[in-house]
């Protein structure tokens, strides 16, 4: 009985709070990350030499540094430069920049898969480079990049658990606090794990819906 009350009064509200924070971290990070990924990916394929170098360097750094280290830099390092970010903002910044670097790889691959002939056709019609990218390249590349980018978003859901390392107390953070107060590590983290599983399942379902929505003849997994 005591057990049930404990779960009802302490565990559920805390984990619920944590989950809300997690979702608030994940959604903006996923959207900003995707946007950054598109900009960086396009720069890597269609940019001039300078832009390409800049974008490649970005990816090298943000994929190369461990994410925790990046978060530490944003949260503990920036104050040395007089910039103070809240744990939440530092986390969203860290996640967006890092997942942007990964997204850009999927976007780049998708851009390269667009047949060169279509670019020639667009140019022969008098498209400027920017218009060609916007109306011919990205709509196709986006469809091809979606499975990879979706995967990155699922991954983000899980690495959002690193936010508690810079005191942004989300789902894992709340779980850790309760667990250390009660020593019920196994039970609490089992529940935490199941909540992540639920989040990733919802995300896959939504991503699948989007993929189906955007499906066109000729883009449907090569007719399979």
């Amino acid at each position: 009985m005591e057990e049930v009350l404990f779960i009802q009064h302490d565990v559920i509200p805390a984990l619920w709070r944590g989950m809300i924070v997690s979702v608030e971290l994940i959604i903006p990070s996923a959207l900003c990350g995707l946007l950054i990924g598109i900009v960086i990916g396009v720069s890597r394929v269609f940019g001039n030499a300078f832009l390409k170098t800049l974008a490649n360097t970005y990816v090298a750094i943000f994929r190369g540094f461990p994410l925790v280290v990046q978060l530490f830099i944003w949260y503990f390092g920036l104050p040395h430069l007089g910039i103070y970010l809240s744990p939440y903002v530092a986390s969203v910044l860290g996640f967006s920049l890092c997942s942007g670097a990964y997204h850009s790889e999927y976007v780049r691959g998708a851009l390269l898969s667009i047949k060169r002939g279509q670019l020639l056709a667009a140019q022969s019609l008098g498209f400027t480079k920017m218009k060609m990218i916007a109306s011919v390249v990205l709509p196709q590349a986006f469809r091809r990049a979606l499975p990879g980018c979706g995967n990155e978003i699922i991954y983000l859901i899980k690495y959002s658990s690193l936010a508690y390392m810079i005191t942004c107390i989300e789902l894992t953070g709340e779980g850790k606090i309760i667990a250390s107060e009660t020593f019920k590590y196994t039970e609490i983290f089992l529940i935490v794990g199941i909540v992540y599983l639920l989040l990733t399942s919802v995300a896959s379902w939504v991503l699948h819906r989007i993929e189906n929505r955007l499906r066109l003849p000729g883009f449907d997994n090569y007719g399979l």
Partner: protein
Amino acid sequence: MTQTPVLRIEGMTKRYGQKEVLRDASLSVNEGQLKILIGPSGGGKSTLLQCINFLVTPDAGRVWLKGEEIVRTQKKVLYEYRQKLGMIFQDFNLFDHLTALHNVTIGLVRVKGMSKQDARDKAVYELERVGLKDHISKYPAQLSGGQKQRVSIARALAMDPEVMLLDEPTSALDPELISEVLTVIENLRANGMTMVMSTHHMGFAREVADEIVFLEDGHILEVGTPDKIFLNAECDRTRAFCSKILELYGSA
């Protein structure tokens, strides 16, 4: 008085590394003329056609459209010039994510700034002209090769070009689909469209070309009427090529 050619190119030269794939090619096309480029694969036909609208940047060479020289380094001039040249590619190059209709409207809307409704009307008209009235809402993946090539012709024509450049428009087609595309091209010619086309279809070239240009190893070796090229070529290389092609494809 000689008339001003619609399109004139002078001294077109293109190198890839050490290899000269186009050497000092010059050509002029009069209003309503159909010039056909023939020659062995790798001879430089595609390169020449793509140098004309600067899809390939030539190392040297000048271009005039209706007497006006095109300064390709001025982006605005280049983009406007390209709109005036329709280009047809061997493998169609339709935009895979758009229906036949939208393949045609996209240039009208995004490049010419036409309203969606006007673009639609124009596109439907052009697609009807190439016999695709019933296929306007199909995606490229749902069309046959011949239909795809006709969509690409409609897409180019919708821009109201002064000249059409056609790069082996039937080479990627199954034999039974070739004639539907050639018929469209013949109609264009009958309506006075100025065209430069490369093809291996000698029967067609002989029947409808005003002039034939023989291109080998990046050189224009001979230019002449179909009769001259096929019956009385001056150049040995031209004769050798024509007889080889006749052997391969018959005289059709």
